[in-house]
């Protein structure tokens, strides 16, 4: 096939600089999406009329639209909208100087929250209602019952799916390059454009993502075992 191995090695090293960016997007998105998804799930489990309806619509919308479009729309709209708000508040801050990774944080948080809402809803429903009744009978408040008994058990059940969501986040964050964020994909593509070595660049990207995702799977496997020691 005649691959330019020298180029591959060089680009691989450069693309590694994108790994922190990818990880940053992943971790910030998870940090926001995990609690957000959890509360969205609660509104549906407890049949809250208004917030439950909101959750259903929200999840439906996010899951029903292609991620690439969500990225493009947020990147096109959000800066202008924020600019309007800042201007009318009399601020002289230039929104267009904002690090585009901020928009990546927004898009991927909102997207992952919708996915995790369903993950948590199904996981919480696997926990026997008797657990909550026993907790109440023992004098625990609903908050403590959830925190100490229900959520730990739901979390173990949710682990495989949270792993899924995390891996999808790592891979999906490659779309951040559309927002000029210098992640793994962006760096490799830029390098490739110089000498048209696209195949080598794509193989490099493949390799890096593979290593990242494999590590994540190992991590979650360990987590699932540790949290599920009681099973």
């Amino acid at each position, binding site marked *: 096939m005649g691959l330019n191995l020298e180029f591959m090695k060089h680009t691989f090293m450069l693309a590694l600089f994108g790994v922190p960016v990818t990880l940053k997007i992943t971790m910030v998105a998870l940090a926001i999406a995990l609690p957000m998804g959890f509360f969205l799930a609660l509104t549906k489990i407890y049949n809250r009329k208004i917030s439950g309806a909101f959750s259903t619509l929200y999840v439906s919308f996010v899951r029903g639209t292609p991620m690439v479009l969500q990225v493009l729309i947020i990147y096109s709209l959000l800066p202008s909208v924020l600019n309007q708000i800042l201007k009318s508040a009399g601020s002289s801050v230039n929104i267009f100087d904002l690090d585009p990774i901020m928009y990546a944080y927004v898009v991927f948080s909102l997207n992952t929250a919708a996915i995790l809402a369903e993950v948590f809803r199904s996981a919480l429903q696997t926990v*026997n209602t*008797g*657990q909550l*009744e*026993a*907790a*109440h*009978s*023992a*004098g*625990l*408040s609903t908050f*403590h019952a959830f925190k*100490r*008994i229900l959520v*730990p*058990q739901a979390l*173990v059940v949710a682990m495989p799916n949270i792993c899924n969501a995390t891996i999808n986040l790592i891979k999906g964050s490659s779309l951040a390059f559309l927002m000029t964020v210098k992640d793994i994909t962006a760096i490799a593509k830029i390098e490739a454009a110089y000498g048209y070595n696209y195949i080598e660049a794509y193989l490099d990207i493949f390799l890096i993502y593979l290593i990242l995702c494999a590590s994540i799977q190992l991590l979650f496997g360990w987590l699932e075992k540790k949290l599920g*020691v*009681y*099973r």
Partner: protein
Amino acid sequence: MVRVNDVHKAFQKKEVLKGVDLEVNKGDVVVILGPSGSGKTTLLRCMNFLEKADQGTMVFDTLSVELNKASKKEIADIRKKTAFVFQNYNLFNNKTALENVTEGLVIGRKIPAAKADKIAKDALDKVGLFDKYDYYPSKLSGGQQQRVGIARAIAVNPEVILFDEPTSALDPELIGDILGIMRTLAKEGTTMVVVTHEMSFARDVANKVIFMDEGKIVEQGSPKQIFLRPTEERTRQFLKRIIPDSEYTI
């Protein structure tokens, strides 16, 4: 000590409790018998608010509440005075046997951990699980799990323990162990309200037997009265089916 009056409860359109009065005095062992669907479990669950009754009042010592309008604090106060033993044990699956018992003490009643630990160990010893403190429920047999459930109930030193068919999910050989523990508790003066199908327990241990059918109390009295001299036809029919070879005189 605890009294409920005129309890009504319907699920969807189906009325399950149609005006039930129950009185429990200190030291009583009350057994509630009846066919399935009679409302006996629902009545028990209404007493510690696992079900919210549609109507009725409860007087617990000096506490007086309306069952359908009880505040969170009133419910919490009443739950502090009661303990519940479930038909399918309902142990906290992610906690060890010891942690199952300390949970209600430390979190539910804010007892310091060291003291709670001692109380919990004593309770587990009492039900014969001195060597199973650190076992998770998944590693315990049904009988052992129910014993943890009972330990969990006695550890909090409640004024009354509510038992919802505590042996119905157990193998026949294990039923005797659990009934034995309950017998010991009764002898020691523990106030108990037990929903069960175990007639031997009702006959030998209870001091008050209540027969329920279709959401109402049909008849109540001492075990002698109910088992040997039932006054209601429905009671007789029920007893005949459960204990087919007994004879009754009215």
